[in-house]
Structures are given as C-alpha cells and as structure tokens.
C-alpha cells in the first residue's frame, strides 16, 4: 500500500524548487527561492535539520546528490549563475567547489553514473552545458559545450552507465569502455543527446517533437535490457517517451505519453525504470506505468496508488 512515511516542514522562507533524497533514501536536500539549501536527516520518519547551506545569491533551482562512494556530496545550482558543490566532512557541510563559468541562471545539475567518476553536468540559460569533473585533490576539470541549446538549456540527465550491448565486443579482462552520454532539453524546443568521443563532447542526436520549451528530460535507469528510454516534458504540456533499441543505430521513436493542460515541469523515473512520475504547473503529480503490451497508463487512480496522488489532487481542487 502506498503510504506517506514522512512529512517534512522545511521552514524555507520562500517557495521550494526541488527536493531530493540521497542514494540510500536517508537524507533529504531541499532548495528554495530563499537562496538556501537545507539538508534533513529523515531516517525512520524523523526530520532533523543537518545543514542550512548558504552561499547562493539567488533562488536555488535544483540540487543533486553524488554517488556515496565519493562521500556525501551535494551540488546545487542557482539563478545567481553559480553551481556550488557541497561536501560533508566530519559531520559539517562546507563548500567543496564553486563553479562560476556560466553567464546566466544555471537551471539544472546532474551527477553522472559513478563509473565515470565524479562528473557533474550543468545546463544554463546562457545556452551552454558544462561538464565539471573532479580529477582528485580538489582539482576540477571543466569542459563546456557552448551554444548547446539556443536561448537556453533547461535540463540535463545522464544515461546509465550500463548501456546494453555496448560490451559485447569488448576484449575480455579489459575495463569495459563505457561511452558517456547524457540528454539535455532546452528553449529551442529540442531534446539533444550528447556523447563523449575522444574526450570531446559531440551532439549525437536531436529529437524534435515538442512545440515549446523543453522543461525536463529524464534518461530512464537501465535494468540491463537493450532498450534505452528517455522521457521529456515541455511547456506545451506534452510528455514524450523516446525509445531506442540500439544506441549505435541511434534511431529514436517518440511516443506521446499524455498532453496535460498546463506546463509539465518535471519527469522522474523509478529505480527500475518502469514508472514515470510527471509533475507540472497544475500542482499535481501523476504516475505512469508501461503495461506489458507497451502502452503507458496512468496508475494514479489505481487503488494501490491512490494515496500517492489523492493528497496532491486535494490540494489542486482546493485551489480551484
């Protein structure tokens, strides 16, 4: 049964723009227009404020937890054009690195799969995407894709490192040579796929279906199946599911999940990649699941899932 296991009152002084739990689901990071990032310990239904991180000079749009094998690391991006990487050492959170290479609001940050090391993709309204890599000893290496999206980049999401089929022809014993890929969405209404070749980032594919700004993209986690899946959502209210059976062939087919009445801000995949949470300007969250015959259905109304959505829907009806 779906149940609320915790309700966290963040005491942010202004609206919240993102909330995300760490890898193990024991800590919650939130960010807000009040320029702060807060970290809560939410183990066993509790809520203990662990840190109130101040450092941004504008509203903070998004946070991202790094894989725990690198320690407790959180990245945050803000309207103030900065990306700050925070790290916990001996129980206290501190700035680990501040990246100021963008000329406009940084709208999205996303850590790459841990196999690639500590690598962060940042998408900004200046149209560029930065890849910030920790090369050890506080050394940070920056690669910038300028003009990745005309007008601005709104979202970035990494491909899982387990890209099926890419290993088949690897000689044995050697480290499998994973190709780094990520997807981005921007104000040019495009979803773009990027991959690293010989240390350089190249545009791999351009997916065109949205008729307005793409607000979020999400590359579905892999469970080892040959199909790659990406979800994208847009100001035009539409959510598309993009699938590709063979990444080397790079042909993607789009499927319209649903046309919502308001802007869709966010898509999020479950850990097994078979449920998609869609949320947007209407203050509602819907969950979508792919049935065995490949059709996407809203499962929010299913008894099991009722709890998940009804409380949000209540808020929405009150509003009107």
């Amino acid at each position, binding site marked *: 049964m779906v149940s609320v296991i915790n309700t966290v009152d*963040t005491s942010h002084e202004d609206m919240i723009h993102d909330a995300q739990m760490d890898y193990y689901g024991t800590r919650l990071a939130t960010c807000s227009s009040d320029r702060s990032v807060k970290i809560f310990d939410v183990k066993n239904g509790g809520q203990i404020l662990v840190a109130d991180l101040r450092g941004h000079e504008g509203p903070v749009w998004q946070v991202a937890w790094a894989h725990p094998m690198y320690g407790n690391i959180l990245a945050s991006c803000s309207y103030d054009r900065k990306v700050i990487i925070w790290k916990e050492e001996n129980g206290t959170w501190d700035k680990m690195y501040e990246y100021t290479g963008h000329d406009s609001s940084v709208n999205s940050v996303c850590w790459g799969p841990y196999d690639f090391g500590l690598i962060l993709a940042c998408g900004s309204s200046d149209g560029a995407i930065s890849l910030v890599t920790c090369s050890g000893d506080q050394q940070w290496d920056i690669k910038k894709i300028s003009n990745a999206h005309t007008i601005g980049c709104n979202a970035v999401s990494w491909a899982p490192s387990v890209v099926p089929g890419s290993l088949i022809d690897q000689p044995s014993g050697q480290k499998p040579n994973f190709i780094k890929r990520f997807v981005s969405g921007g104000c040019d209404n495009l979803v773009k796929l990027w991959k690293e070749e010989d240390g350089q980032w190249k545009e791999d594919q351009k997916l065109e279906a949205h008729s307005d700004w793409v607000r979020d993209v999400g590359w579905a986690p892999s469970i080892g199946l040959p199909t790659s899946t990406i979800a994208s959502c847009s100001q035009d209210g539409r959510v598309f599911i993009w699938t590709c059976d063979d990444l080397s062939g790079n042909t993607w087919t789009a499927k319209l999940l649903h046309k919502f009445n308001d802007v869709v801000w966010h898509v999020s995949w479950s850990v097994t990649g078979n449920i998609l949470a869609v949320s947007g300007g209407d203050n509602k969250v819907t969950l979508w699941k792919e049935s065995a015959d490949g059709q996407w259905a809203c499962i929010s109304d299913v008894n099991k899932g009722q709890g998940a959505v009804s409380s949000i829907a209540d808020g929405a009806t*009150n509003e009107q």
Partner: protein
Amino acid sequence: RHCSSASVNVIVALQHHCSSAPVNITVALRRFLYVVNLETPSEAPRKIGRPSKWDVGTVQWNPHRAESHVFAASSNQRVDLYTWRDGCGEVHASLQGHTRPDLSGYYLVTSSVDTYISGASQVKWNKRNQYLLASSHDGDVRIWDKRKPNTAVEYVAAHLSKIHGLDWHPDNEYILATSSQDNSVRFWDYRQPRKYLNILSCQVPVWKARYTPFSNGLVTVMVPQLRRENSLLLWSALDLNSPVHAFVGHDDVVLEFQWRPQKEASKEYQMVTLSRDQTLRIWRLDPQLQKLCANDLVEDPIEGISLTTESEKSLPSQDPEPTIHSCGLPAENLQDQAGALTSGGRHDSSALPQTLQQEFSLVNLQIRNVNVEMDAVNRSCVVSAVFGTNQVHLVVKFPSHYPNNAAPSFQFISPTTIPTAMRTKIQKILTDTSLQKVKRNQNCLEPCVRQLVSCLESYMTQEDGSAANPYVLSNPVTPALPAFPRVTNTYGSYQDANIPFPRTSGARFCGTGCLVYFTRPITMHRSVPPTEPTPRSLSALSAYHSGVLTPMKMRSESQSSLRLYSGSPTHTDKDHVSISSFYYKERKSRRFKTKREGADYGNRPVKLAGKIIIQEISCLLPVHKALGETYILNVNDIQDTCQKNAAAALVVGRRDVVWALASAATSLELSPDSDPDADAPWARHPFGRHLLETLLDHYSLMSDVQTLAMLCSVFRTQGCSQDYFSLYGHYTSSSVSSGSCYSTSDSTTTTTWSIGRDPEHVPPLGESSPDDYRYANQMYTDPREREREQHDMNKRLLDPANTMQFDDFKKCYGEILHRWGLKDKRAEVLKFTSCPPEPHKGIEFGVYCCHCRSQVRGTQCAVCKRFTFQCAICHVAVRGSSNFCLSCGHGGHTSHMMEWFRTQDECPTGCGCHCLLQSTF
C-alpha cells in the same frame, strides 16, 4: 474577444487624430472588419462583413482630419474604401489598379508607384517629408521620392536577413529604424547608407520596432511565430543596453501595435496592442515612463527634441512644446527645426549650444579607469583618471564659441597626484590637441581624453621601470571597469526572458521506494485562472516589479467587469520580487472571497514554502526489499536455494511459481552428462533453455530486475560442475578468485594463492567465465576439444551468448541492493558476474626475464625471446597458470605450488621466505 475565427492574419489600424470625436480602432480578420471604439472598449465591437475571400492585407484610416471617417482596406489587388458613420460602415468605393498584391503599405498613395516597389514587404511614408517613402525588400531598404518615382533615391543594405518592420523617426526626416530577422534593430540616416547610426541587439528576431511619439523611445516586439515572448519592450534610443520597460500582460504573442493619438491636454500616451489570442490591450504611458526614455543627463542630438524640463532650461533655442503628431501626418511647421537639429546639419551660431550638447552625448568615453562628468549647462566637464597610485582630476571648460576656433581650457584640480612637471607637460599636449581640432571646427573632448590616457599610461610604465625598490610590490591597479557596464540584472525582469519559470511543485523518485514531492502550500494560488497555462519564462515576474502599469484585459464575455491585472507590486520590498509573487496575488483575492463566505483566512501569516511529503511507493515497484533480504544464493544446494526463495516469495505475496520452475530445471536428475556423446542435455529440451528464456523475457517486461538477476545467478552455477563446488565446500565461482587480481597479460592467469582454501583450478577443468570460452575457441584445435567445448555450451541453461546482458541484470540489481543497504547480498550477487565488477586498477604483476633481466609483461621475453619465468619446483618455463609469493617473488605452476604448500610453509627455493604467512593479505 472579437471572434472565434482562427484567422491569423490580423491587422490593426487606429483612426487618426480627431480631437473630440471618439477614436476608433479597426481590427481586420478574414471575413470581417471590426471597429472598436476605444472610448468605450467594453461595448461589443462593430462588425463589417467583407465579401472577399482574400485576407485583408492592410487597413488604414485616412489621416486627414476632414476625411477621418474614411478608412481603406486592401486585399489582393483591390483597395476598398469604407465610410464609417454612426456606428456602421459601408463600402463606398473600390480601387483597383495594382497588378500584384502588396503585403502592406499606405495604399491610397502607393498606388502611383507600386509598379516599381511591388515586392516590398513594408512601405512607410516619411513622417516629416511628405514626398519620401521607404520600402523594405528582404534585407534592403529603398528610399523613394514620389516626385521622381522611376528610381529609388537611396539604397540601404540594412540587414542580412529579412526586414520585418520599418519606421521613420517622428521628428527627423532622415532617420529610420529597421527591425529584422537577424535579431537586431538598426538606426539609419539614409544619407549615410553604408553605416548604421546605432544598433540594438536583441536575442531574438525583431518583428516591429517603432518610435514612440514622445521623446526618444522605441518599442519593440519580437517575431510572433517564435511564440516565446508575449511582452513588448520599451527602449530609450539613448541607451540601447537595456530596455526601459517591458509591457507584460498579454497571454499570447503580440501581433501588432499602434500609438493612439494623444488626447488634448493630456500628458499621457496610449498604445494599443493586439495579441494572437484576440485580445486588445491599451497601455498607458504616463509622463514618468516617458521621462525614462529621455535621458536625464544629455539628450541625443540625433533625436533632436527632448521633453525633459532640465534640457529645456539649458537649451533655450529649443521648442519647449512636445511634438504632437500622429503617424504619417506630416507636421510641416516642425520640419525646419528638426532639420536644424540633425547631426551633421547646419553649424550656424544658433546651433552651437546643441553642438556641445551633441558632443557630450556622442562622445565615446568607455575608457578604462577614466570617468568623465559632463555638465552641458555650465559648459564644462571633469575628467577623472586613476592609474595605480596616481589620480588625475582635470576640469575642461568650453568657451561659448567652442568648437568654432575656440579651444577649451584645461586645469588640474585636487586631488591630482602627479608631479608638476608632468602636469605642465600634459597640459601642453592637451592644448595642442584641442587647438588642432577646433581649427577645423571639430570637437576635441574625446581626442583630448585619449591623449591624457596615453600620457598617463606611458608615465606609469616609466615610473614602474624606475621603481627604487623592486621588492616592494606596486599597489594593485584598481580593477578595470567592464568596458560596457551592464545594468545589474534584477530578478524576474525582462532580462530573464530566457530563464524558465521556476518549478513550484514536483515529484521525484528517490532511493528505491520513495516518491518525494513538494507542492505549493494550499494557501498559494496561481494568479491566472487554471485554464491559462503557467508562464514559460521567469520574465513573467516583471509584472510584479514596481512601476507597472495597469493593463486592461478586454473580454467580450466579461465586459461588465474589466479585470485589473496587477494594481501595485505585491511586495513592499521592491528589490525583492519572488516567484511567490506570482502565486501570492490570488491568495489575496481568495481571501476576499472567503471573507464573503464567512470564513476568516485573512489573518493567517502567509507561508510560502509547502511541506515536503515522502511517500513509500515500493509496492508499485517490481522489486521488494524484503525479498532482497531473504533471497539466498547457495550454489552448493541449488534445490534448497530455489525452495527457500520460493517460500520467501510467497511470504511477500508473490504467487508466481518461478522458483518452483527453477528448482525443477536445476534438479540433479537433469544435470547434464559430461560426456558429449550421451543424450542431448536438458538445456536443449523445450523446458530447458527455452523455458528460461521465456521466463527472462517475461520478467524483463515487468522490469523485475530482482527476479532476473536471481535467476541468472542461480542458473549461472547450474552449468558448472557440481563436483567443483562440493569439493571445495566454498561457494564461489572461479572467476571471482581469478578476477581479484587479473593480469592483463594474455593467456596467463596469474593469481596469488592463499593457503589452499580457494585453490585455482586449471582451465578447462571447470567452466569459469566466458573469457575462457573465447580462449578455448582460439586455442583448441583438436576436434575432440571442440566438441567438448560445444557440449559445454549446450548443456548450459543460460545462453552463453547473452552473458553480458545477464551481467547487466546482476549489476543493476546489485545497485538496488546497495541502495537498500544490503551490501553483503550485493556482493553475493555480483560474484556471479562474468567480468570483475571493479576492473583491477591497483597492483599489476610483471616479471623480470630470468635470462636477460629485462622487464616482461608476458610469458615470453620480448628481448631474448625466451620464456621468462621458471617454476621453482620443476624448473620448467611456466606458460599457463602460475602463482607466486608476493614477498620473495618465487613461484611456479599453480599445481606444483599447491602441492608444495600442502605440506610446507617455506619457499621451495630455499630463500627462507615464509611464503604462506608473508603473502597472506
């Protein structure tokens, strides 16, 4: 709301100035023309039907006062003249004469020249000179004089891309502005067609750029097809770095806008805009806003006439009356004056005060470390320069005849820090420079300032070079000012047009079974009705900045109550506009509503941040944490493993019989015969490999990576020799031990051995990893070996061809187990991957050739071509599996070493190393 027609081609024309009569506006759609009376905008618009099937190309009211009730509408090749009387319009004449349909233009007059300028997309009459006409052709502008219509007066290659809009300066007959697809607005003096006077760079293609009827303003609107920005921007022509104001409020792109003729005795101007969603808005430009367009300090000589009171005082020769005019209506009484004020115009003595004024406004003093304060009234300016430790302050006074052979005076004032000798030198240089210029009646301020800077710079370098004490660091140079200081970005202003509107609610899957969502508090509401989508861009917030005008929204449904959109800024703190402003508004109105209903929400403090709710949704997922904990992987007894797992699955309510099937398929009776000549192995049976494949396909569809990984792990062991596992009583696949330190050297599996508990078998005794198979394929040439090999493949229930995919299942499941904190379980599953989970990075074993002592990374020395490594027991070169002691480096064939250390614990070479103890990690 005018019409539900989907027509996109909408043209607006304003009836021209009629001081007392109501001002009408005409909106043309395909089938009808609508006339709206702006005095009573709430009344239903009057409709005039049109018989034509063509879209209306343009609509224009007669600009002449006497005939102001007449308007013309063009479509295709015809122009219809309509008379508007007493609220109804009728066609009173049709003109036909054009051979080609024109897209736009002032038809009543252009008909005479259309042969030459057809193909023009924009045609505009000069507002000052009744003979002049400008037309745009893609990126070019042509200027025509109607008195010599056979050829264009001037060609201006204005833009590289198509020109969307063209507008003449209201007061200067030579100046026009063009807006283009190339993201810029350019200002031209058509007498100098090679170089634009100024450029306004926008981020987006510009649809229309029109001068305001007052002072030096300019209004731009972007190309509607892009559908990005619904607001209009007001610029001051004097400062094109940033717009003065954004007219925010339209919910759709703006197609057209026009200035409403000014009412008598009113300081206000009004602009009528039409959006694609078929709403008209009237915007008021109060004197305060108009003032923003007129620069405080100086006025632009190009624009000529200013409305600011300060400049009126300083410029007595200027007409203090603001120019009242309407588009296209020539105002001849002002023409001379405008001509006199243009740059490069006459230089008679009466124009001299403007010349200094002009110079001050035109002078380019974007010079590092230099600041110039100009005071046109007192005819002086103060030049301040800071170079390192030195400061220079210089007063420049301009005599009244300047620049007519009268040089300005230069005087240093405190706190100037440079030595007196230097001062004298600089003063001389400056006087010389200025004299040279004024002799030719030229301005000298800018050259003088630049001279000053170069003098100071050379002085600075001299001083640095002769610095007495090299160990004293010179004071840091003051940080250079940015060459073009940008206006600081205010949050949510027009500059944020490309920043997406922030998320205020959202949901994210986190960990493994959690959905974290944040929403707006229930007390927060959208200021727009739910039918209207949330804005796209953060610049929508600019409506909440201070000084916002009150746009009206005209809707035919709710004409009785014109809704005021945003009366005053919601936050008292003007600098702090927050995203919550967007939602906060409606809360207020809701409060009114609830009060009416009797409830009192009004006194509650506003909470801007909602709660974050964490929900347990693992029941929706195909993986179960409980199963992750209880599933076991005991390769010693697969039957038992399957039965226990089946029981565990039943406990969490899973009724699939997958574990029963697995148990059956792995039963000992079905275990394959090692003899390839015996029966076909069970794997070839329909319930063998085929059944398993079907199962895997099914769970793939379910995304049940847990079951997939468990099945793969269980069946991975199935093909292996049972004896192998039972013999050593330790469930591990060979690949794990070999993987723990895998040498990259080909065909040599170098392993460290540790006390015989986990001994290495020699391939191909038992199957280990697909690597072995590959080598097997390469190595064994004996057909019997090949057959055996084939048999080994066949007897496995998991198709070895898909090993990589099975590994991926295990890795992904391992990751989920890790998130659950089940690290032991994760390690158990990852053991069954064919590749080492973490590629070995640390120590790599290499040998020195025992003959030539060169470093070798294989079994054969590259230098002496001999085998590099001898077995310590049999003294034969080792080619296959070997083990060494990490301490003394001795070792040999794995089998020999195993044999030796079963009974001994010292090195067989007699070096005295206690290898067993030393090399135990």
